[in-house]
């Protein structure tokens, strides 16, 4: 709360700095803008950046680091009391202290040591906030002072402001990249631990997937088998079914929208199709599980086919429907991008509309369509909710779409849900699956981007 007020005050000061810088710049040339090197607004922005940026950066860093620092200090204050405790006990103790400090109810009646530590915790936090506010105020006023002092007609405010803006944009992009790298590194690190316990060859080529391991030594439980082939086969099966549904329907819908539909029809159909993409996947999931699954089962029974109530077919079909808008929307854009002159050229040679589509427009937009399909495939591979609800959990190695199968994403979910030690092979298997999934979708995305770029070159 206090922090929020502080930030609002800082932003207010920054706005003030902008106005004041502008005014001062104008005053320095007595209103004749032509004598300024940069426009007054750049002078304003220059002062505002000096004033606001350092303070905001410091506050942000402070907020990130403060809790950790405070906790360290608190723990070192009671170092004697916690000597000999295990890591888990310490973290329990710490959460007690934290709860007490923020006024929440603790689990046990607190010991004097904990009470004292909590008091110290509160105190340190207060101190930290005071220091942070002080630092922010000093930086703001110092920045304001420097910024204003620098203002004179010849100040090269525009290049400097633009350099800072460019820097901020660069930082934003770096944050996204760093996050991705972080995720990948943690995946690799944890997978590595998994492969320390399970042979990678067994994981990649084993045919038996039953990741149940005993929690405690005295428990009855599977010894765990981590052959991931059935899981990948399940993903493949469902993806194939989904693409069999989505690609033809999506493509034909795209052709209809781009080539045949009148503008009014198109303006109705296109948003309607895109609504499909906006339906939450959970909704698709229970639609698949509660409507389509039983429907197929009933149909199967009436013709004497054994259909599991949770089947790859139900999940794949519904997923295919979900993916239709991906294929149709992208393909529609691509088909529309084919220049009208090619259509005219073909029609003027006496080709019919459908010949023109088949022989000129589709080949010319093929690259883009392939890109759309590949993006849809990686969407299908990563989809979880529908499969959790409609395809079942059993890792059958089967090509029969009427049976229940399971997929990589579903296994990741089930491995991580429930009580498990965090460093057991079962839990770590999720990271290995995640890594493989990541690599596959990454490869698909790279191929898709390549293909799309190549397509783009054709009309440039």
């Amino acid at each position: 709360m206090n922090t929020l007020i502080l930030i609002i005050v800082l932003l207010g000061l920054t706005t003030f700095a902008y106005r004041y810088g502008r005014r001062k710049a104008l005053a320095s040339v007595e209103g004749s803008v032509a004598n300024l090197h940069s426009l007054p607004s750049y002078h304003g922005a220059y002062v505002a950046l000096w004033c606001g940026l350092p303070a905001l950066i410091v506050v942000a860093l402070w907020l990130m680091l403060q809790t950790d620092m405070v906790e360290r200090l608190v723990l070192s204050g009671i170092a004697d009391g916690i000597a000999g405790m295990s890591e888990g006990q310490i973290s329990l103790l710490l959460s007690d202290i934290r709860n007490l400090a923020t006024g929440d109810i603790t689990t046990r009646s607190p010991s004097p040591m904990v009470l004292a530590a909590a008091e110290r915790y509160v105190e340190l936090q207060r101190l930290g906030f005071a220091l942070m506010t002080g630092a922010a105020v000093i930086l703001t006023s110092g920045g304001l002072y420097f910024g204003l002092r620098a203002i004179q007609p010849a100040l090269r405010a525009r290049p400097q402001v633009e350099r800072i803006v460019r820097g901020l944009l660069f930082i934003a992009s770096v944050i996204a990249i760093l996050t991705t790298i972080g995720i990948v590194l943690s995946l690799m690190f944890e997978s590595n631990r998994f492969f320390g316990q399970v042979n990678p060859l067994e994981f990649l080529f084993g045919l038996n997937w039953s990741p149940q391991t005993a929690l405690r030594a005295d428990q009855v439980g599977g010894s765990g088998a981590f052959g991931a082939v059935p899981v990948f086969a399940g993903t493949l099966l469902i993806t194939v079914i989904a693409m069999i549904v989505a690609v033809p329907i999506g493509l034909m819908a795209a052709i209809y929208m781009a080539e045949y539909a009148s503008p009014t029809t198109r303006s109705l159909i296109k948003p309607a199709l895109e609504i499909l993409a906006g339906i939450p996947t959970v909704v698709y999931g229970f639609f698949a599980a509660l409507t389509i699954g039983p429907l197929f089962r009933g149909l199967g029974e009436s013709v004497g086919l054994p259909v599991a109530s949770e089947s790859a077919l139900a999940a794949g079909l519904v997923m295919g429907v979900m993916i239709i808008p991906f294929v149709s929307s992208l393909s529609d854009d691509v088909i529309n991008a084919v220049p009208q002159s090619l259509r005219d050229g073909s029609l003027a040679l006496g080709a019919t509309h459908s010949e023109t589509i088949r022989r000129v427009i589709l080949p010319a937009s093929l690259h883009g369509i392939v890109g759309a399909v590949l993006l849809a495939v990686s969407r299908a591979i990563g989809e979880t909710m529908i499969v959790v609800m409609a395809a079942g959990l059993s890792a059958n190695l089967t090509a029969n779409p009427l049976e229940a199968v399971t997929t990589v994403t579903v296994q990741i979910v089930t491995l991580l849900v429930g009580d498990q030690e965090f460093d057991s092979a079962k839990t770590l298997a999720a990271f290995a699956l995640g890594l493989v999934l990541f690599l596959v979708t990454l490869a698909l995305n790279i191929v898709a981007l390549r293909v799309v770029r190549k397509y783009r070159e054709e009309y440039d």
Partner: protein
Amino acid sequence: MTEAFHVENNPQPVEESVSGMSEAVEAGMPEVDAAHAPTKVKADNVDVFYAEKQALFDVSLDVPENQVTALIGPSGCGKSTFLRCINRMNDTIPICRVTGDITIDDQDIYDPAIDVVQLRARVGMVFQKPNPFPKSIYENVAYGPRIHGMAQGKADIDVLVESSLQRAGLWNEVKDRLSESGTSLSGGQQQRLCIARAIAVNPDVILMDEPCSALDPIATARIEELMDELRQNYTIVIVTHSMQQAARVSQRTAFFHLGYLVESGATEMIFTNPEDKRTQDYITGRFG
């Protein structure tokens, strides 16, 4: 789309818009070789509307066989619109409506019994901007014959492709690179490829809408030469903004202004002794 078209077959007497003038000109110009050439395309009282807006008013024009007819006039006067009536490319514009009679070899091309696909095979078109398909040079030329089932085997198509490219004057430049993309050619080569593509289906009439406007003078000269050769076998209608080009390549010229056909006749006549003040102003560069 066909509903957008109302062809009124008015059996009213043919009324030359520039009455009597063309006969007089032809009679007085014996050096224009085929002055009495039979009429290939005949337009009578053609009106064209884009939605409510009328783009052509009562245009009547005869296009003689085996000659080059040039359509000239200031921008927006309806030259392209008229040209596109002759192969019914206006059908592809939903808001476009054509009335009046257009016949080719005395056959009404807006007759509902006419198959527009066959019509367009008989009336080829070359566009202002070269628009080769993003296929190989060979496939570009083979496209039309394949669609119309004009050739049986690969050998037939090979022959057709070669002869079309030869007639379009492109064969020597591309004979070693037939499998390269048509879009990899230069602008002038692309335009000649489009001409080859059009003559590969062996049309009677070739329509060209400013075929040289995107080309340099050398490529333009090459295509003008080509038109002169092609006219032995085809009837050519060309839209051009270049007076010199019209004078060089055409035997007949028609001047359009604000949707009206102001005057038409032998090219020499139009350029040396125009009847209408507007024609004179236009060709002497006083407007447009």
